């Protein structure tokens, strides 16, 4: 079943995929600048008005997740299209809807001062203490709804294509192999398994998100329409947690594809691999309650489940994916270049980010760490050193196989610069969290300022390194197809 059947025009698709990566990459770099500005303001280095700070906060969170998800969806589409027939038209609609959504969100935030943070926790969009008005709130919320609709269309298409080729989403996850009805040799490839998982969890997340967005929109238009704030919070985090989490599950396909290719070793699908991805599917859907451990009104069993399943959610990556990647690389004589180096670095980022995440999901720890800077500490590691690095890895890979654009010493310097900078940014957040520094605070008391300044300086290096990565990829986009390699059309290990 792992025969290459789809994507009869891989090279012409590269332009489409490349567009999503360029947009994603540029937005990520721009959002880093807002991150630096916020850290400088918290460190007392620059003065930013309160309203402006929270607009930066809102655009930084929304933009980072949106841009990374856009680029990761492009990566997933690129690899999945080798095994199933995906619709180019749907991908173009997806790109268009995301762009329309982004424009509305940006206008809502900067022209109409909307600043509810990405969480838009009901009823904050409607009750702003006169900081923003109805138009700003509607632009943001409807923009997010349009953006989400774009993603939903994409996942409906991936789901359709997987079901058409493999029979069902269960079979896409390899359940017939786990149950013994099918031979392991006929298991779906890793790309399909990961894509099926993401299709399931993100469709659920987007429906939850659309529900809470629509309820907020009605509430903003007509404040006499109200709904349960705890239900709203559940829907918001079910959407936000799953959607953000799924970025790495899309992007990790790069690691699955690249490391075996570079190490010249087979990374075969095993029953353990299939079980791990089913576990990830279930856990990702359920563990969003670890965002609500300080909502004592929640049923206690849901909060205990939030802790227990968050612990369990570390197992598939720690025991299967990260371990598998290390096995593939160990004593392999692997050829290191930017793509393989970034793929390996990203697995390190994901693994190391699991540690503070599990610590924070512990209820007694969360009681004194929740909504401190510990939280951005762990997710900057997971996203910045994990998921986003996977995207950069893919950018260098595509440039290598589909153009004559060469890697230079500058790229290597950028590699180390990026690794050290994002590690420093994450570490200063963790230190701040351990010092009880609250997150999402426009000002900091003197004892909290030093890590913020350190983070801002590291952030500057991060932007420089990211810009070098993106410039390399833009050069590729201009020189696409100049190498004529068929490597990207070959079946992968």
């Amino acid at each position, binding site marked *: 079943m792992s025969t290459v059947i789809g994507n009869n025009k891989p090279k012409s698709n590269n332009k489409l995929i490349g567009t999503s990566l360029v947009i994603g990459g540029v937005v990520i770099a721009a959002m880093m600048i807002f991150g630096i500005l916020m850290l400088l303001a918290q460190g007392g280095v620059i003065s930013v008005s*309160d309203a402006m700070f*929270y607009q930066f*906060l809102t655009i930084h969170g929304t933009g980072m997740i949106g841009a990374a998800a856009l680029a990761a969806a492009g990566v997933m589409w690129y690899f999945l299209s080798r095994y199933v027939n995906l619709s180019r038209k749907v991908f173009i609609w997806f790109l268009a809807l995301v762009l329309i959504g982004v424009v509305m969100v940006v206008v809502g935030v900067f022209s109409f001062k909307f600043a509810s*943070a990405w*969480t838009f*926790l009901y*009823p*904050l969009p409607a009750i702003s*203490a006169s*900081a923003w008005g109805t138009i700003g709130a509607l632009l943001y919320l409807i923009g997010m709804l349009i953006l989400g609709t774009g993603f939903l269309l994409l996942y409906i298409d991936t789901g359709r294509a997987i079901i058409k080729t493999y029979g069902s989403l269960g079979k896409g996850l390899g359940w017939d192999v786990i149950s013994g009805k099918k031979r392991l040799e006929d298991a779906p490839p890793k790309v399909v398994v990961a894509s099926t998982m993401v299709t399931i969890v993100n469709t659920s997340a987007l429906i939850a998100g659309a529900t809470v967005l629509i309820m907020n929109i009605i509430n903003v238009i007509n404040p006499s329409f109200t709904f349960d*704030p*705890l239900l709203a*919070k559940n829907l918001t985090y079910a959407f936000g947690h799953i959607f953000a989490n799924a970025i790495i599950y899309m992007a990790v396909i790069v690691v699955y594809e690249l490391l075996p290719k570079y*190490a010249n*070793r087979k990374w075969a699908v095993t029953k353990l691999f299939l079980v791990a991805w089913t576990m990830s599917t279930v856990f990702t859907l359920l563990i969003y309650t670890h965002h*609500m451990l*300080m*909502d*004592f*009104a929640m049923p*206690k069993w849901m909060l*205990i489940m939030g*802790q*227990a399943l968050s*612990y369990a959610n570390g*197992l598939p990556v*720690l*025991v299967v994916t990260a*371990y598998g990647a*290390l*096995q593939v*690389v*160990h*004593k*392999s*004589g*692997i050829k*290191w270049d930017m793509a393989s180096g970034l793929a390996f670095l990203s697995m*390190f980022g994901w*693994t*190391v980010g699991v540690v503070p995440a*599990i*610590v*924070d999901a*512990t*209820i*007694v*720890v969360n*009681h*004194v*760490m929740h*909504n*401190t800077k*510990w939280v951005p500490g762990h997710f900057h590691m997971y996203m910045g050193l994990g998921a986003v690095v996977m995207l950069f890895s893919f950018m260098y890979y595509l440039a290598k196989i589909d153009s004559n654009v060469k890697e230079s010493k500058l790229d290597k310097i950028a590699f180390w610069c990026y690794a050290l900078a994002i590690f420093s940014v994450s570490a200063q957040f*963790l230190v701040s969290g*351990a010092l009880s520094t*609250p997150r*999402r605070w*426009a*000002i900091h008391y003197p004892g909290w300022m030093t890590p913020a300044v350190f983070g801002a300086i590291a952030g500057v290096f991060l932007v420089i390194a990211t810009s070098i990565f993106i410039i390399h990829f833009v050069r590729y986009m201009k020189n696409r197809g100049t190498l004529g390699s068929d490597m990207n059309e070959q079946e992968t290990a």
Partner: protein
Amino acid sequence: MVQTAAWVTSLVFMSLVVVVYAVVAWKSKEKSDYEPIKKKWNKARKVYATTLVTILLVVCIYTLRELPYDLPIYGEGQDPTVVDVEAVQFGWLMSETEFKVGEPIEFDVTSKDVNHGFGIYDEDMTIIAQTQAMPEYTNTVYITFTKPGTYKILCLEYCGTAHHYMVSELTVTE
């Protein structure tokens, strides 16, 4: 202190991850047959996975013994002081703000408008307890101050553009 324990635990395990990845990256220069490597490390995975599951299980169960949601067991004649806390953009309305060391207190926390976070900071500006302040719901924080001093209440859930001004004080005396 919980924060120190969390920090040290994270540092230890994160350092372990750094070492493992560094060793594998270093050894990647060598070239050996994959089959023996796979065989050896698949075997090792069983030990590693069992150890990991055991550690996670033990830590999970151990840390779930006492939860901040649970009503403490009070001594005879030791009735808690119930404090009504209402959050409002951008301040705290509290029925009492002065307490004694050793006095069991229950903060019943709610909100008049949007979501807020009720975070109690000690004199060293370290969080000692928190809960969410939500409209339509009441969350109860159980606490007995062990040291006298001036404690601060900070809003720990983003609630609007003056969120960081939402600070109040509690006084605890001997």
